[in-house]
């Protein structure tokens, strides 16, 4: 029995298939099964170790599954997948591209353009090679009775059709038809026998539907085989990896994370932005319930309806009067004021407009704003007029009229609550008004600081003493109710196109701008502080509503989901410069806007556009760094990667599930390293990476079930044209004299030394140059009153520095204490351990390099006339890994290593002479392994995803119980 047990894996979803009510999905070597109707996880079964699943097929009676991946196949029972006592498993010599499971045999098409026929106990019975010998990227096996036709997709733009069961000349079968039309690698082929169409897709970013005149075997018998292009579709902005044909439509999914649903004639039915930019390799459709399931390479799995239920209405006003502004009332009713000052009311029930009032005085200028509850709206005019209307059982009633003392233009009108609102008049005069018993009372007036465009664009209460306004220039002002002038000014929160929206969410303030940035603030003791900023993929952000952000991308109206980080709905509307409104109930979502002097109303059945997430996606690309820790009785994974995000996930107690808590997009470039420390009773997280940026975050336990993460400080150096783009590769946090120092390893050969000041700002203290080599890792340790820093670089040396000397002031040149050559080239991972024996202390250094080598060095540190470090003995191994070693850790008298080669190796070692024994090996399905971390007795391997495994071996278990090692 293996000493490792898989607990959880999150990596590329490489295959999806819907069988009856089951969604079968391949994630790593695990087959996971979900219920389609309940949208719930049912079970999972481990099929391969260290090998991803690339396909699943059922037999006709649907009681068996053939699962394949790479060169491996396995046959299991279905649906009781865990029941199968003995799995049949085998490996063929070639990569399997497609497979079919028949009752007494199975057939496989391989990457070498070969068809293999296997007996039911998986012995190869027959091999037929296509006469065209080349590598394939895709193949499809079509079976009709006993005839097998293979369609194979080549590297060079052709689909080859051959018929191995009919034409077999000593194991070689001729190509009967070549389909030409693509201009690149063919990534996927599908054939729908019933409608007689073949679908192929390619890296030329197009998909082609090919029409057969008759059934495939019929057609191939003809002397003049007629297969012609029915339609070719374009729309993907990158390679198309998968396509599938169904009775009424076909689907394509690609590297651009988009899935398109097309009609057979090539019309677009639906475009879905599925997994935050990660490639799509797995898609399937349930034709019965009309749902599509999409898997991403970020490990996300979601379900969408095929057809989005969207109704587009044009609501022209009587006599085609041009509307000025509109707003939604309750029950989808709409109020509109026209350019002539006529107020109309639209009743959704009767689908008709009613003239409510003629407001001569609002003819040329009128602001219209509805309250949050949609029961009230205000009209505000050029001469300080305010009219408040209330909707009452399908009637609009004017409840009050008010004219400000200044009788001047009302620039903006913001509802703060249902009964209070703020208006802005000339010279930045703000009026806080209170509606009480159908009377408007002036509570107080305020001054907006001087600026060229001196008016507010958004406002919200924070608490009963403070309210916050955003202005046309992108600044925020915090006012206390009792003070005319702002008590706090936060400049340049957004660009000079202004703050578009402010809203309060629990204790956080969110602000939106037209620069594509969502900023979040925390308010502590009435001081507003930036907590995080988030860059969205479109510029004009207009409104935030729970998880949704509404905005405009070019000429399109966009509804974007913050959690999924993807667009759920998009529609051409002409852009953001128009009157529009948006309401959402639990099942519906309505948008209204004025375009070409007509009111357009879009009614969206929310369930039809909103995905059901079966598995939450993780990082879009490779995870470069991950730390796992326990904090306040919970387990957390904090990870950062190539996709520039930092994600905080909570791991459940037995490590079988993760829940995403935060997805923070603040880094300008990729994240290379994450370090955490408990400092002054705060859990601090440092993340660093490209563009020489370091961000400091603080994790706090808000109320027992939710932690918040705030951005305390972001450090980066703005570059000038001639500077090279430096990356921070690693960090070491060092506490000395009640001060927290941060040592950063830089790709330009520098060590940057920072400290944290009292306001949690990262301050650069000094730059120390090592040499023109990329420093890949940095660690430190205390040894007999000495603090020693160790750097490792692409030159393969371990470099020792005396931290005391590094921190000394006024020293011009700083040199290392000692250097020890350990590797031929770059060192990617390091761990150390100090141990005592016979009253002597030693340090053991474990390093893993680019050169496949694991090196263990036993060092003695002495201090006679300065620090001196000697290697007493060493151990090296270059055999267990065959690729870069990216993670090493020492745990008592064992050590662990991981490598890009997807192996985790465990060694036992003795301290005296460094005798090492290889103990065991685990193969992970995670590619591009970048390292691992321990949490309790679990190991979290990360790279292109995460693999959480448990050590089952007794002596390891004891290890983990000893808290000193964790």
């Amino acid at each position, binding site marked *: 029995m293996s000493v490792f047990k898989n607990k959880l894996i999150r990596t590329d979803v490489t295959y999806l298939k819907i069988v009856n009510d089951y969604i079968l999905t391949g994630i790593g070597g695990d087959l996971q099964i979900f219920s389609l109707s309940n949208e719930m996880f049912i079970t999972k079964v481990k099929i391969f170790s260290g090998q991803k699943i690339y396909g699943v097929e059922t037999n006709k009676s649907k009681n068996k599954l053939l699962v394949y991946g790479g060169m491996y196949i396995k046959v299991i029972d279905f649906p009781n997948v865990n029941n199968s006592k003995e799995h049949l498993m085998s490996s063929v010599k070639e990569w399997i591209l497609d497979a079919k499971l028949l009752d007494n045999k199975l057939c496989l098409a391989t990457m070498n353009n070969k068809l293999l026929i296997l007996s039911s106990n998986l012995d190869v019975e027959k091999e037929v090679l296509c006469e065209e010998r080349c590598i394939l990227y895709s193949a499809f096996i079509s079976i009709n009775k006993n005839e097998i036709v293979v369609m194979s997709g080549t590297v060079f733009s052709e689909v080859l059709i051959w018929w191995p069961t009919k034409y077999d000349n000593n194991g070689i079968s001729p190509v009967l038809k070549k389909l030409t039309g693509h201009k690149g690698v063919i990534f996927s082929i599908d054939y729908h026998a019933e409608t007689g169409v073949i679908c192929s897709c390619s890296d030329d970013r197009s998909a082609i539907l090919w029409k057969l005149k008759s059934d495939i075997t019929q057609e191939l018998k003809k002397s003049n085989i007629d297969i012609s292009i029915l339609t070719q579709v374009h729309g993907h902005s990158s390679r198309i990896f998968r396509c599938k044909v169904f009775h009424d439509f076909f689907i394509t999914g690609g590297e651009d994370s988009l899935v398109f649903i097309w009609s057979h004639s090539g019309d677009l039915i639906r475009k879905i932005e599925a997994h935050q930019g990660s490639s799509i390799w797995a898609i399937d459709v349930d034709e019965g319930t009309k749902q599509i399931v999409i898997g991403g390479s970020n490990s996300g799995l979601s379900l969408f309806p095929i057809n989005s239920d969207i109704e587009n209405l044009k609501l022209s006003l009587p006599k085609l009067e041009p509307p000025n502004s509109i707003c939604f009332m309750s029950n989808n009713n709409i109020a509109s004021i026209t350019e002539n000052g006529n107020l109309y009311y639209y009743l959704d029930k009767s689908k008709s407009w009613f003239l409510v009032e003629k407001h001569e005085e609002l003819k040329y200028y009128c602001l219209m704003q509805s309250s949050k509850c949609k029961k009230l709206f205000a009209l505000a005019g050029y001469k300080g007029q305010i009219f408040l209307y209330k909707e009452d059982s399908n009637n609009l009633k004017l409840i009050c009229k008010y004219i400000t003392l200044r009788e001047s233009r009302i620039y903006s009108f913001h509802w703060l609550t249902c009964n209070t609102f703020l208006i802005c008049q000339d010279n930045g005069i703000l009026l806080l008004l209170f509606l009480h018993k159908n009377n408007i009372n002036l509570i107080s007036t305020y001054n907006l600081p001087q600026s060229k465009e001196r008016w507010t664009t958004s406002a919200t209460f924070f608490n009963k003493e403070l309210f916050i306004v955003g202005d046309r220039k992108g600044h925020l002002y915090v006012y206390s109710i009792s*003070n005319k002038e702002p008590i706090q000014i936060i400049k340049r929160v957004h660009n000079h196109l202004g703050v578009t929206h402010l809203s309060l969410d629990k204790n956080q303030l969110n602000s939106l701008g037209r620069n594509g940035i969502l900023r979040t603030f925390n308010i502590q003791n009435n001081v507003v502080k930036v907590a995080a900023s988030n860059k969205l993929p479109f510029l004009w952000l207009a409104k935030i509503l729970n998880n949704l952000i509404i905005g405009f*991308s070019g000429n399109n109206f966009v509804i974007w989901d913050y959690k999924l980080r993807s667009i759920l709905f998009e529609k051409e509307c002409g852009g953001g410069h128009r009157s529009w409104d948006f309401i959402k109930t639990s099942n519906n979502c309505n948008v209204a806007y004025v375009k070409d002097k007509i009111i357009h109303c879009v009614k969206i059945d929310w369930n039809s556009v909103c995905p059901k997430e079966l598995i939450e996606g993780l990082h879009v690309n490779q995870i470069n760094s991950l730390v796992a820790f326990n904090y306040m009785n919970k387990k957390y994974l904090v990870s950062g990667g190539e996709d520039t995000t930092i994600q905080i996930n909570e791991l459940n107690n037995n490590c079988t599930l993760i829940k995403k808590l935060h997805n923070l997009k603040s880094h300008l470039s990729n994240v290379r390293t994450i370090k955490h420390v408990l400092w002054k009773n705060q859990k601090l997280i440092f993340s660093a990476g490209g563009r020489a940026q370091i961000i400091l975050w603080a994790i706090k336990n808000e109320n027992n079930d939710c932690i918040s993460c705030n951005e305390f400080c972001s450090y980066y150096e703005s570059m000038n044209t001639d500077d090279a783009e430096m*990356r921070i590769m690693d960090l070491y946090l060092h506490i000395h004299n009640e001060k927290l120092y941060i040592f950063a390893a830089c790709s330009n050969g520098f060590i940057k030394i920072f400290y944290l000041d009292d306001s949690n700002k990262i301050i650069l203290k000094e730059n120390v140059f090592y040499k023109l080599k990329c420093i890949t890792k940095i660690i430190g340790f205390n040894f007999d009153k000495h603090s020693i820093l160790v750097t490792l670089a692409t030159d393969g040396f371990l470099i020792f520095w005396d931290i005391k000397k590094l921190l000394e002031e006024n020293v011009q040149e700083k040199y290392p204490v000692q250097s020890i050559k350990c590797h031929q080239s770059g060192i990617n991972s390091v761990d150390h351990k100090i141990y005592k024996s016979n009253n002597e202390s030693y340090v053991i250094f474990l390093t893993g390099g680019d050169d496949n080598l694991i090196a263990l060095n036993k060092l003695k540190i002495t201090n006679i006339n300065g620090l001196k470090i000697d290697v007493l003995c060493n151990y090296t191994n270059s055999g267990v890994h065959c690729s870069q070693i990216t993670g090493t850790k020492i745990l008592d008298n064992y050590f662990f290593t991981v490598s890009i080669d997807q192996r985790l190796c465990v060694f036992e070692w003795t301290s005296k002479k460094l005798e090492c024994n290889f103990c065991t090996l685990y193969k992970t399905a995670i590619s591009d392994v970048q390292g691992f971390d321990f949490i309790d007795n679990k190991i979290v391997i990360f790279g292109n995803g995460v693999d959480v495994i448990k050590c089952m071996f007794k002596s390891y278990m004891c290890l983990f119980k000893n808290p000193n090692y964790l």
Partner: protein
Amino acid sequence: MGKTSKDKRDIYYRKAKEQGWRARSAFKLLQIDEKFDIFKGVTKAVDLCAAPGSWSQVLSRKLYLGETINITEKCTLFHTDDIAEKNNVGESQVDSKKLKNENVKIVAVDLQPMSPLPGVIQLQGDITKYSTAQEIIGHFEGTKADLVVCDGAPDVTGLHCMDIYIQAQLLLGALHITCHVLKVGGTFVAKIFRGKDNDLLTNQLLTLFTEVFVVKPSSSRNSSIEAFVVCQKYNPPQGFEPKLMTPYLNISNKDFSSLEGVNRVIIPFVVCGDVSAYDSDTTYPLQLEGEAPYKYRPPVQPPISPPYYSSKKEDTPPSTLSLKKSKDQLKNIVESFESGSYKLKSLNNTLDKLNNIRKNSEKDSVIQEYIERLGKAVNKITENKNDTLEEIIENLKALDLSKKEDIFVSNPMEDLLQASEELRSSKVEKRMQELKNSNDLTNLEELYNEVNIVADEKTFQEFLAHIELLDTCTC
């Protein structure tokens, strides 16, 4: 990102352009040669997967033109443009009068076409295809090659195990050709991906070659899984028939046990590239010490057009515009503004475009100049603006503001902020209550003015009671 950003990130990319190589890969072959002397005595060579052709350049110059190439010096051959400023230190060692080595034979093969090189025969085809192999073999009828190199790599898909498998297939394809054309004792150099289980494959090379090394040139990125096998002394087993190569070599060798133990044969891993050589992970300053002043150079061989370029329909525009395209677009926009022929309707699109351009080329001087011109044009329009234009113009002006500044926080009422809640509200309320109780109306009014509340006390209290509820709807 400006055009120099790739130069900044990648020293070898920059050096390749300086020295006139079509791709940075040239350095990998040169560094392998530095260590293993693979060109010694070679007159006939095959370059598999050669495009855009930097390895073929190396072969052409070393074998056909008989040059010695010093990696660290500047060379001036094959430059397609202005690179010819020779500096004295790196005097080119080409002797133009030297006779070309006419009995040299170099065959280069790739899926992609590539521009011609002196002394190189070019074939276009898929090396994993049997027919291509036949064609290459045809060129070596009666003779044998001394060296076969293969730098082939698939367009990676992101599914690593598949990419690694395809890479292994390319290697097998190359090896199949090699076994037909390589003389006994000859050398084979090929790219491999160091990933899952690649040792199973490389180990088997020992059945065909006496010496096998896995080599990582320092010009290959540390983080990349790419490496090379250098196989020397071709020595096929007795009676070896290249056609039946597969039984000898297979990546699915099932006998894992022999390969997983610590005692199995381990192919030595060698890092090459002089100690002083650059490594491609380090960030180097653009201006390196002791070198001529840095100057941006365009790529020697522009990348071959990807398949989708020729796709019939317009694709959705790529998210990052090429610099050239950006400039053209910007130029059009600027000119339309200067001449007043801009269209209001397309402005929103224009704005997004501009923003994209700016994002991609913040530091480009030409773009900066255009933006300035645009700013002026916009200002001019602003002078006789009408109301509808107002906001649009505002957007355009936005683009002019290129300075990026950080958020700046100030607390003009620091003391007030620091003060406890009591001071701000309760205390005032308390005082009000006192004054009210004592019916001190003048002072009460003053206090109101002082705290700037204009509503009468009753309304204010009601207001306070209302906002206590904040977000709950009271309608």
